[in-house]
């Protein structure tokens, strides 16, 4: 199972590309897409999900051109868009039955699959209520369930944990990890901890370009010796923020403990600490790499 993306680009206006020269080889596992707003993550995912046609480049799913034969991928695709709606007069079971039908699933076994999915997304008790009355988080869980209906080989989830409460977020992370064996999962999110908890690979995207793609371990290795912590006076904090990438602050009785990402030791009293993904994100997106 392989997804090969070569020189992918999407032009929206004559002078604006949402994504350009984007090349990536994706194999089984969870790929976490990280990037700021407007980086091109959703554009990339919509092209993978056969919703948006690329302006240039190729997407190959097991060597089949997805742009030319989208149905090849659609048959094994599960997609959770960032922004989606539901049919308000249907209940969760009816909606999932509808989605199963248009995904081309046989009736045999669909019911069992839907029952299981409703348990997984914790909607069993609400399953027979019309979707029009669901809260945002409940609708999001219906979206997650529909994405998993056909046991997809390629699962694309765009901001899947938006609107979920902390418990549901943990459940979803566990679910993703459980699913990620023999399939490709592409996860886009702003919540770095979601990626940290689940991703086997990370792609950093900014201004429509792929900045870096590696395993979380390799990404963190690059930051070894570049993350520092020390205590400063509250009054010095604004000046420090102007000068360095500050990835965290904790207020203490003797001042503010700051966490800074910097190639060099910023102050004599600063001590090197273990990097985390948030540090890496700020370091690479901030252009210090």
């Amino acid at each position: 199972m392989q997804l090969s993306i070569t020189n992918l680009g999407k032009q929206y206006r004559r002078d604006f590309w949402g994504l350009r020269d984007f090349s990536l080889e994706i194999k089984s596992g969870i790929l976490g897409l990280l990037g700021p707003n407007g980086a091109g993550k959703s554009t990339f995912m919509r092209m993978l999900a056969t919703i948006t046609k690329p302006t240039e480049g190729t997407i190959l799913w097991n060597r089949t051109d997805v742009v030319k034969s989208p149905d090849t991928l659609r048959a094994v695709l599960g997609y959770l868009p960032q922004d989606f709606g539901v049919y308000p007069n249907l209940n969760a079971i009816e909606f999932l039955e509808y989605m199963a039908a248009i995904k081309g699933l046989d009736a045999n076994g669909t019911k069992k699959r839907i029952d299981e999915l409703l348990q997984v997304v914790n909607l069993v008790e609400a399953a027979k209520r019309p979707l029009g009355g669901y809260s945002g988080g409940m609708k999001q869980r219906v979206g997650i369930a529909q994405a998993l209906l056909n046991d997809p080989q390629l699962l694309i989830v765009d901001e899947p944990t938006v609107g979920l409460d902390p418990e549901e977020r943990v459940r979803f992370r566990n679910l993703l990890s459980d699913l990620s064996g023999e399939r490709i999962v592409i996860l886009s999110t702003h919540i770095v901890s979601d990626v940290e908890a689940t991703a086997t690979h990370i792609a950093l995207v900014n201004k429509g370009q792929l900045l870096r793609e590696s395993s979380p371990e390799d990404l963190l290795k690059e930051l070894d010796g570049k993350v520092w912590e020390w205590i400063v006076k509250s009054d010095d904090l604004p000046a420090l923020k102007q000068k360095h990438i500050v990835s965290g602050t904790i207020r203490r009785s003797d001042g503010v403990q700051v966490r800074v990402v910097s190639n060099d030791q910023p102050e004599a009293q600063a001590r090197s600490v273990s990097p985390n993904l948030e540090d890496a994100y700020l370091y690479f997106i901030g252009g210090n790499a």
Partner: protein
Amino acid sequence: MNTTRVIYHLARADFLERVRRYSFLIMLGLVAFLGYQTAVGNITMRLDQYRGEFNSAWVGSMMSLISSFFLGWFGFYLVKGSVARDRETGVGQIMATTPLTRILYMFGKFISNFSVLVAMNLVLAIATIGIQLIAGESTQINLFSMFAPFLFITLPVMALVAAVAVLFESIGFLSGGFGNVVYFFLFIFIFPLADTLSKTNPAFEPLGMGLIQQSAGEAAKATFPEYSGGFVLGDPATDESLGIDFEPASYIFQWDGVDWTPDIILKRFSFIAIAIGLTLVASIFFDRFDPSRRKPKRIKNSASISTPQIVSASQTLSQPVHLTPLTISVNHFAFLRVLFSELKLLLKGQRWWWYLIMLGFFIAGLRNSPETARQFILPFTWLFPILIWSGLGNREMHNNTQQMVFSSASPLWRQLPAQWLAGFIVTILTGSGVAINLLSAGDTVGLLAWFSAAIFIPSFALASGVLSNSHKVFEVLYVTLWYLGPMNKIYPVDYLGANSNGNIGFFIPFSIFLIIIAFVGRARQLQN
């Protein structure tokens, strides 16, 4: 809070949002087309076979009446939807958290609606100068005579339309497709009212036709004493149709316009006061984007809907999240399942009384004479499910499910045909009483017309829905067609064969064309 400033900015933002939309351009194009049709003489105003000289007063009055009629009718559908947009985009809820009052919000919407309609009128008003010059009967431009009818006739009508649109949007059951149909009938019923008022108090006749008819009629009578009081807007007179000698001197009279007395102006502007009153009424009904004030229509168990089940953290986190791998295969030919699902989706949410009424139509179609069934039962039977058909082709966009649906297998060759077929099945089922009646009476011609209509209606709905991404276009066009064809016996568009043999030679090929258009449109949506 500075009230004027708030209303100004509310209306301005809304106005700019709308005039930058594609639908505004289409409507502007239609208005320009109307101007062109008038300029070339295809649309005109006449009093029986007589008409006034094409001077500023005549051309200005004619154009203002055309505008009142056209924008009074279709302008409603253009401006309605602004509150719904605020609701759908979530902007409304943000506004609801500000000190903005319901009255201010409604007035902002009213002024925005009014401004959009006035902008349309400006196009027609400017075109009026060109029309007079092209006609060449009078080269003297009298700006007051030309534009006074726009000011005193059309603007009050536009204010009324703007306010009615706001009112409909504020009342839950009128805010959707049902309101679109209701407005059509409301507009149609203005005409009998206009006829009465034209005789008693023409200035109070909303569309202003009575006022022009009375004033121009007096001038016509002075020149042609045999003039009997008729008035036509739209259909041009031809010597063949009227059987008269068409020498200009025998049918053109001089008319310098309505004598705009303060009394008439006051009466006309009273419509603006009514419009303001309607806006105030609208603010009473307006829910201020509070979901709890809107009836959860067609949703059962509403009281418990939003109450999430209470599950302890330990319970949820300890639950296994393992999914059994799917052993069933993806069946690329599961068309029947998609069809069944589409059918379910079309009918889901209909209340018991909907089925009861359809049953009533079925029995009425079966038990009346074939003629009655064709002329009266079938037209109403196939008007009633309009809100079901109007969802075809645009339901995905309307409910924002398009990304999920379009990324499923074969959305073009499986889901779209299934959607059409589901619409076709609903059409057949609802009209089956009449069909059985015609079949048992051996009315083959009627049955063929019935069949061509059963193909045409879902095809028309699907194509309109896919191309416009909206249910509104089908609702407006279908009701118009229904009114003109089956109800007003304009035979070429009598798609039901209610008063004719039907026009199956046109409607069946046209339906196929519409289906092709829908497929092309959907293919483009899939390849954006």
